[in-house]
């Protein structure tokens, strides 16, 4: 059995190879510097007092006893943030955005989730800080909470924000509501489409709140120098994002803030939001000392940003031959305390795998008393795929049709117009389905008791801004600096694209991630964008280097630049074979021909290539306990071009594993008062290697026409299909159709009792 396959269309010299990662030695020897390794002289430790209530009005905060506690240097509340001293008139249209951002850091009038920051203090050490925290007295008026998305949508639900009204595509609702936004898109004639169908099926689905589960907790160290410069060392997916948030909340120019991104111990979307940075900054300003904060695991669960829970209704009509005639979905997602769930991304992704003439999707972004949700790999798409791909499996069962044949019949391809209106360019879903159909796993005979499921997934992938600067050293080694934080091996994949473009060895490019003062604006490492967009910046910067190298050769040979060409790392005269330099030979001449060469590029590219994945999974289900074991798992994905196939395989396997956890184990449990009851890794059960089979991978390469090497981006599509694939496999093994996640042993047993099978 082949566990990892790469189905390549085009071969390159460096791109597509598997070199060692530049940060590998430091990471495996423990020398890499993470946020908590930052220890400036005189650093104080901060602790945050958090609301014990999911919904409460803050009547008063008395910090006097904590301020008097020996070793405490400063205490802050929302009154210390600029928002407290600005009127609604002064802020105008900025008011609501700043209130939400400021209150998310430190609550001013209401606590909106258990764990909501109420106050913070800085002390000489963490123990003193912890002790003093207990001396802060807060008087609350406890309010009724709501932590279920459907309950929160009801007219009589407790209002999270008394002034929030539904934004219906630019039209504001006439009364307060927890529904922040509603969007609807349609194409074709939905009624006609369903009328033409031979079979119409419709069901409702729910998914639970889940966490990204990154190993490293949120941490930050801030030092507000007496000259006004604020420096922040932190663990983040986006140093410029942190800079913008902190500058916005503190009402200072972005150039006054420098963010130094440390190595990052996992993010998956959860480390885009800045939680501790502004708090530490204000404490530092008050004390004149550096201030560090580190969340506990419980704080990470209760007060960072999980992925939203969802409710979905899906309806699909098909002809007897399997051709889809109409699709419809309503998707509601909870945003937590402040608006911003990925419900609208979910409606874009829901049916993006299919070419169907008639469709309608509605999305609802709903606030409730949970921590404000954050991005989590392909935000919104996994939930939508669970619903859509589960219903398609039911339809395949009714039609007695092979699930991959059904999907091939209806697959989106180049030219397919999606429901929101965009037309697909060259995409690789059909190739992924064919690779899955032809895979040894799909053809393998099923032993008794094993159920097999398949599902598809989609993520659009993104572009956005990236910057790269490359400097040619006199020994011919190129120093490459970038603003993209390295989560999944992007130092290597960006260096590979630079080396490929320059025609030099991978080892001759030294990539470094730098702070916000040292490079142009670079958007987050997220959205499956970095290998694509920062890769494009590296390619353009390399082209800049090449043209300058040609210019130097022209100077040396006293000839015109047009007479010189740069081919595969060689600078040569077009008509005189004797005149040529290797890259290194010419680099040695730079000092005497005008000095060092730097190439640079800032890009904001379009042309991102959509990503598709198809997963096959086998499971067994213990009939006595209801426990599901995943016995075999194959992940197929179109990478466009896998720059470093090992890291692409790692992304595919990582997404699949997180999806398995999402499918079978993971959920926030809330008690009747709306408090999370399992905020530890002991009780929030993520899969370990002992729970999993090897995840086999097939990298399909259908080149993205929007990138010189065909790169699409790979970090997200792999988490989209697993939940539906596993649900479909559980159905095949047990006959129970599971429409709520997670598919716990208890739920399987209950389904059996309801079906009278157990």
């Amino acid at each position, binding site marked *: 059995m082949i566990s990892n396959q790469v189905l390549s269309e085009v071969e390159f010299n460096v791109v597509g190879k598997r070199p060692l990662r530049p940060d590998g030695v430091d990471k495996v020897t423990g020398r890499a510097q993470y946020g908590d390794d930052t220890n400036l002289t005189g650093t104080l430790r901060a602790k945050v007092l958090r609301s014990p209530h999911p919904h409460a009005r803050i009547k008063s905060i008395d910090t006097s006893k904590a301020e008097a506690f020996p070793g405490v240097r400063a205490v802050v509340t929302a009154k210390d943030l600029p928002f407290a001293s600005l009127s609604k008139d002064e802020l105008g249209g900025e008011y609501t955005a700043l209130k939400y951002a400021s209150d998310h850091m430190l609550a001013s009038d209401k606590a909106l989730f258990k764990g909501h920051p109420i106050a913070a203090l800085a002390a000489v050490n963490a123990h003193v800080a912890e002790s003093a925290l207990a001396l802060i007295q807060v008087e609350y008026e406890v309010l009724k909470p709501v932590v279920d998305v459907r309950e929160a949508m009801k007219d009589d639900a407790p209002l999270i924000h008394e002034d929030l009204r539904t934004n219906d595509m630019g039209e504001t609702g006439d009364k307060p509501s927890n529904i922040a936004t509603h969007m609807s898109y349609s194409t074709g004639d939905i009624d006609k489409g369903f009328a033409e169908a031979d079979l119409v099926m419709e069901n409702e689905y729910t998914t639970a709140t889940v966490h990204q589960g990154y190993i490293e907790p949120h941490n930050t160290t801030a030092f507000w120098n007496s000259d006004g410069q604020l420096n922040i060392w932190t663990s983040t997916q986006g140093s410029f994002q942190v800079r913008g948030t902190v500058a916005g909340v503190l009402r200072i120019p972005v150039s006054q803030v420098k963010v130094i991104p440390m190595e990052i111990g996992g993010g998956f979307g959860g480390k885009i939001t800045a939680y501790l940075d502004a708090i530490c900054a204000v404490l530092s300003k008050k004390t004149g000392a550096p201030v560090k904060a580190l969340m506990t695991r419980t704080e990470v669960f209760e007060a960072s940003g999980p992925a939203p829970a969802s409710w979905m209704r899906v309806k699909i009509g098909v002809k007897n031959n399997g051709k889809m005639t109409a699709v419809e979905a309503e998707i509601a997602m909870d945003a937590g305390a402040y608006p911003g769930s990925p419900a609208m*991304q979910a409606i874009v992704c829901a049916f993006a795998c299919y070419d169907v003439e008639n469709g309608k999707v509605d999305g609802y972004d709903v606030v409730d008393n949970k921590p404000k949700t954050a*991005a989590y790999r392909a*935000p919104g798409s996994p939930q939508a795929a669970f619903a859509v791909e589960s219903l398609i499996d039911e339809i395949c069962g009714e039609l007695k049709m092979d699930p991959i044949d059904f999907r091939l019949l209806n697959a989106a391809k180049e030219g397919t117009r999606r429901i*929101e*209106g*965009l037309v697909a360019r060259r995409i690789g879903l059909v190739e992924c389905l064919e690779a899955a159909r032809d895979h040894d796993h799909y053809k393998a005979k099923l032993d008794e008791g094993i159920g097999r499921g398949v599902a598809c997934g989609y993520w659009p992938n993104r572009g956005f801004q990236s910057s790269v600067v490359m400097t040619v050293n006199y020994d011919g080694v190129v120093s490459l600096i970038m603003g993209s934080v390295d989560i*999944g091996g992007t130092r290597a994949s960006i260096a590979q694209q630079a080396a490929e473009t320059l025609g030099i060895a991978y080892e001759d490019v030294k990539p470094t991630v730098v702070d916000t003062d040292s490079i142009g604006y670079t958007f987050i490492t997220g959205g499956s964008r970095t290998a694509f967009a920062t890769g494009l910046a590296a390619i353009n910067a390399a082209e800049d280097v090449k043209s300058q190298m040609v210019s130097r050769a022209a100077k040396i040979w006293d000839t015109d630049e047009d007479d010189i060409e740069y081919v595969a790392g060689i600078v040569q005269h077009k008509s005189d074979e004797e005149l040529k330099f290797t890259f290194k030979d010419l680099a040695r001449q730079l000092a005497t021909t005008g000095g060092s060469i730097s190439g640079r590029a800032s890009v904001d590219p379009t042309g991102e290539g959509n990503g598709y994945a198809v997963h096959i999974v086998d499971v067994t289900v213990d009939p006595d306990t209801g426990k599901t074991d995943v016995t075999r798992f194959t992940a197929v994905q179109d990478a466009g071009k896998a720059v470093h196939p090992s890291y692409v395989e790692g992304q595919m396997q990582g997404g699949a594993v997180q999806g398995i956890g999402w499918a079978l184990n993971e959920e926030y449990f809330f008690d009747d008062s709306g408090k999370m009851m399992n905020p530890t890794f002991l009780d929030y059960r993520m899969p370990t290697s002992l729970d999993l089979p090897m995840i086999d991978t097939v990298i399909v390469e259908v080149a993205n026409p929007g990138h010189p090497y065909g790169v699409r981006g790979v*970090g997200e599509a792999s988490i989209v299909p697993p939940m539906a694939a596993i649900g479909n496999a559980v159905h095949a093994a047990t006959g129970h159709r599971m429409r709520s996640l997670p598919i716990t042993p208890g739920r399987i047993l209950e389904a059996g009792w309801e079906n009278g099978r157990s």
Partner: protein
Amino acid sequence: MAKIFIPTMLQSLTAGAKQVDVEARNVRQVIEQLEVLYPGIKDRLVEDGQIRPNLAIAIDGDIAIMGMLEKVGENSEVHFVPAIGGGR
């Protein structure tokens, strides 16, 4: 003429028209033309002079990175779609 696809929720302002053709060289002109044809539609698409934050404009399939200043071709397709970020 550029082909402008009207989002479903705004078709009540266009008497049900799903697509209209306008003469425009950039997004700003597209919206001004739409406002002339369908008064009130601009407020549904624009906030403080910019495209509303939960919307993105796609021109011939590419998200318009320059917002209101983005150029529109003679035969371009223009869509108003949900803005999308990402998590990895």
